[in-house]
């Protein structure tokens, strides 16, 4: 069934949903570009933030501190422009799951650390609220998977 064959009311609903999906996509893209850009200002400081999670050795913290910001920026641009849309959504889903697991692990181990999600711009955020935010973003991502190309 296409938009031409459905009732005007349903078509109107689809349009609204399309616009909502578009807005959510832009918000998600903006957050990823912002997060990546802020981390890129000081990759050495970001590596130290990753190291505080005590999950991986230092050399991989340094590697991730260089790679993650660009991955977030590329994903954000891809989401915004809709180039490689499914690939970007796959990365967003994977990154948000990994970030959430890292935050959960820090919470369970009682680590008193900052999220490090936005470099050093927003510190003292702890781990609880960033975890909730990530879960909300995961919810948005699920909606976008359902409707990756809004009308």
């Amino acid at each position, binding site marked *: 069934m296409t938009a031409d064959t459905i009732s005007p009311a349903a078509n109107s609903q689809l349009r609204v949903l399309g616009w909502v999906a578009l807005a959510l996509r832009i918000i998600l893209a903006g957050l990823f570009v912002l997060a990546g850009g802020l981390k890129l200002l000081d990759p050495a400081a970001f590596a130290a933030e990753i190291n505080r999670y005590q999950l991986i050795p230092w050399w991989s913290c340094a590697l991730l501190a260089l790679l993650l910001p660009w991955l977030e920026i590329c994903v954000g641009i891809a989401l915004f422009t809709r180039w490689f849309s*499914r690939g970007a959504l796959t990365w967003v889903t994977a990154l948000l799951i990994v970030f959430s697991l890292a935050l959960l692990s820090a919470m369970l181990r009682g680590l008193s*650390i900052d999220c490090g999600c936005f470099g050093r711009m927003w510190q003292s955020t702890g781990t609880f609220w960033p975890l909730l935010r990530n879960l909300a973003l995961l919810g948005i991502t699920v909606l976008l998977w359902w409707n990756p190309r809004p009308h």
Partner: protein
Amino acid sequence: MKTGGQVSVIFFAALALAGLTAAVHPKKPSFPDRFPAPGEISLQDVQNWNEPVLWVDARPESDYEIEHVPGAVSLNPDNWSEQLPHFLDGWRPAQRVVVYCSAASCETSREIADRLRHSGVDPVYYLKGGWEAWRTTR
């Protein structure tokens, strides 16, 4: 392009840009282990950590009261029992601790570092050259 291909394109684009960043960024992370095993550490290394450190002043309290590293906590063999709970209140798990005593010749910083480790504080370092090393660089 299939999803797997798109995922790969995004990854390799980010990898290429990360390589460029590693080559030119003035604040790129250093790959050799920046945090050596707990033990003696130089002031230069501590300053290169680029993160907050909890300083412990292991000198007598009279010396501490005259002057100490900003933010340092006084913890020495004489006040150990009464000050340790205060120290633990201010220490965040995984926060790096650096203990110093008067000079290179004193052993108190090493002793306090050992005591802290046995109390579950980790990682703990002791400053090479002690207070003298700090003072001469100020």
